[in-house]
């Protein structure tokens, strides 16, 4: 429950209520203005003094509209060139106002205070940094309460759902430091925890990102709460913020539409959007699927996932890992195959942040299908790996080759060995390693040789094994896959020991 600040006895307090004339201009054209050191009267908060800004919601009867209170020294008592602690707290009330809206309102403080001529506001939360210009004093600024009033009026003008607003500004060091620790930081933490809990089903819109289209013309990132951009840089919140500023820019809103598959994360709105944006080359995208209509990849991804049919599991390798993965390929080689906005089944570019998603590849078993990742990567994401899987995912210390990986997975009894049951609905999605007794189906192999751009759709769930007629030979196990192949060359290799 939110509470008003209790101002300790003995502090210097100044109060002003109601509207007034301002001795400064207010306009968006002042946005981004830097008050240079030489032009600065005083600095408030910033790199050298404590400070914060905080918006909290209260019941309407506790908020006195357009009341501004200052605790501590005011502008007319400050020394030119000085630096002072500074906190700005706003109490807001209104029918539609609840704690969820606080951060959205709070974020606008930056924008509105930037509209004030001669006032600089940078950063947010407990990193705010303000300056008052000498020109403001010359023009007749007498009190911080005037700044508070101007800001409150901007809030009410721009966000009409705020019915009442009251401001408490503090320059008293002791009180700023106390409230920062006891009030502001716990609220910031509470909000961050709420953000982590936001999922795809909680929102109506996803966002696109087409920043990479200069490199990958048919690629478009679909950014949802459970799936950040694959470059790792843009979360759903970032994209939403960018979209608000420039709705026609690189981050546009994607109405979710109808949810076609809640497990794989398929939405009619997303399908329409990617089809249009990719010029028709991508028909549909399932956000949390590795094998069926996976998300396309630009070239920016931090990590690439790769399917290893030999073990029927997925490995991941990050950009910084210099060696080859158990499939014999390095990051750069795989990145070359999967990049460029193609929908490449068997490879999937992801951002580091996707590993902490609750929906991480949930259609394909999520973590229970992951068999290998470099130690460095595994350590980074360890806390997101379910406890019972932490020892079952191999690193280069456990396995460098496919044979070693097989041995390892058998030893630790990895789910892929006996078949993966996906946690989301308890469905058994793989059969496990079928030993050599499997039926032989040799015809499948030729079918993929039909020429360019002919999709060969393999029936799902049927392992396609090329028989061991005589050594040397290859074995293809393809499950759950659609494959587009330009050309297949099958060549006899010289007999050699593995």
């Amino acid at each position, binding site marked *: 429950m939110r509470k008003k600040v209790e101002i300790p006895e003995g502090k210097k307090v100044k109060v002003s209520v109601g509207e007034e004339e301002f001795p400064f201009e207010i306009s968006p054209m002042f946005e*981004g203005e*830097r008050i240079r050191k030489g032009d600065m009267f005083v600095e408030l908060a910033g790199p050298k003094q404590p400070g914060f800004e905080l918006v909290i919601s209260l019941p309407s009867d506790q908020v006195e509209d357009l009341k501004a209170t200052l605790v501590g020294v005011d502008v007319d008592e400050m020394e030119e060139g000085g630096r002072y602690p500074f906190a700005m707290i706003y109490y807001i009330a209104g029918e539609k106002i609840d704690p969820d809206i606080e951060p959205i309102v709070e974020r606008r403080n930056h924008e509105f205070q930037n509209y004030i001529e001669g006032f600089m506001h940078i950063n947010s939360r407990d990193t705010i940094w303000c300056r008052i210009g000498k020109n403001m004093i010359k023009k007749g600024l007498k009190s911080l309460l005037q700044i508070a009033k101007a800001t409150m009026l901007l809030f009410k003008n721009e966000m009409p759902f705020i019915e009442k607003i009251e401001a408490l500004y503090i320059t008293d060091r002791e009180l700023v430091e106390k409230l920062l620790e006891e009030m502001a930081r716990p609220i910031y933490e509470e909000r961050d925890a709420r953000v982590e809990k936001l999922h795809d089903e909680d929102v109506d819109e996803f966002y696109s990102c087409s920043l990479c289209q200069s490199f990958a013309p048919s690629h478009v990132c679909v950014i949802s709460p459970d799936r950040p951009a694959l470059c790792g840089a843009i979360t759903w919140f970032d994209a939403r*913020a960018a979209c608000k500023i420039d709705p026609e820019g690189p981050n546009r809103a994607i109405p979710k539409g109808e949810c076609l598959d809640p497990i794989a994360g398929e939405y009619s709105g997303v399908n329409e959007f990617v089809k249009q944006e990719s010029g028709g080359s991508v028909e549909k995208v399932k956000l949390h699927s590795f094998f069926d209509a996976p998300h396309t990849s630009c070239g920016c991804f931090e990590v690439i996932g790769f399917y290893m049919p030999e073990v029927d599991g997925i490995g991941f390798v990050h950009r910084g890992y210099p060696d080859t993965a158990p499939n014999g390929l390095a990051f750069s080689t795989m990145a070359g195959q999967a990049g460029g906005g193609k929908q490449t089944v068997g490879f999937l570019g992801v951002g580091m942040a996707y590993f902490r998603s609750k929906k991480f590849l949930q259609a394909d078993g999520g973590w229970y299908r992951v068999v290998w990742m470099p130690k460095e990567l595994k350590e980074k994401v360890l806390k997101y790996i379910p406890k019972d899987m932490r020892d079952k995912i191999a690193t280069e210390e456990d396995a460098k080759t496919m044979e070693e990986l097989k041995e390892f997975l058998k030893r630790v009894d990895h789910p892929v060995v006996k078949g993966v049951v996906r946690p989301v609905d308890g469905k058994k999605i793989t059969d496990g390693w079928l030993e050599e007794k499997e039926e032989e189906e040799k015809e499948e192999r030729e079918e993929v040789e039909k020429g360019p751009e002919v999709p060969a759709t393999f029936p799902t769930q049927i392992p396609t094994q090329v028989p061991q007629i005589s050594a040397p030979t290859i074995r293809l196990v393809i499950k759950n896959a659609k494959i587009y192949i330009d050309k297949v060359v099958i060549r006899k290799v010289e007999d050699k020991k593995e």
Partner: protein
Amino acid sequence: MVVIAVTGKGGTGKTAVAALLVRYISEKTSKVLAVDADPDSNLPDALGVEVERTLGDVRELFQVSRDSLHDKSSWLEGKIFETIHEFENFDLLVMGRPEGEGCYCFVNNLLRGILKKFMRHYDYVIVDCEAGLEHFSRKTIESADYIIVVTDTSRKGLKTARKIKELAKELELNFREIFLVGNKVAGDEAKRVIKDFAKKENFVLLELLPYDERVVELDLKGEPIVNLPETSEFARRVRFIAEVLTGWGE
């Protein structure tokens, strides 16, 4: 806001010209931003100031810490403000090291927006940039009003000048004018080479700067060029360039 880009092949003296322009223009207005956009040169040294932070460092910091940032644009804006060095008459932004591996699309896109909003509050932005005009091609700096190409009489210097002009056109920088400034011009033959080149390549020849022992010496020692005596021919002529540019600028 007037953006003046000073460029040219390395060693032609472009940084000396840029530094003196910062000095003379900042005598007229204190709203001057100097931008060091050439990782190979050293505008801070030429200006006689020390810097410890660069935008490149901020960009790298962004790349490694972005997962834990809540409002990336705001964070970046704050860091840029912290990266600006403030001196008595001007502010200085050092762009710093080039990009590493990984994807910079998003951070560059944020930078574009922030720098655009931030730069417009200065009267003059003076950019010392390498011949490839990297920050202009990435649009981290949106455009230049005046481009000053500094060259000596060497074939390489002139060739680079020609390339810069082509590049500036290709990038659609919408500049108002592209100027040529000849440097280390000693003797009539040298003057003729530069003049003929300007005519042939359709450059407005703004000024011919003399070969000055002291400029070379200060440069060699890494001492501030702004210590050059006011009375020297070199300083006098750069002051003239500053006057011409501010005359047009206003």
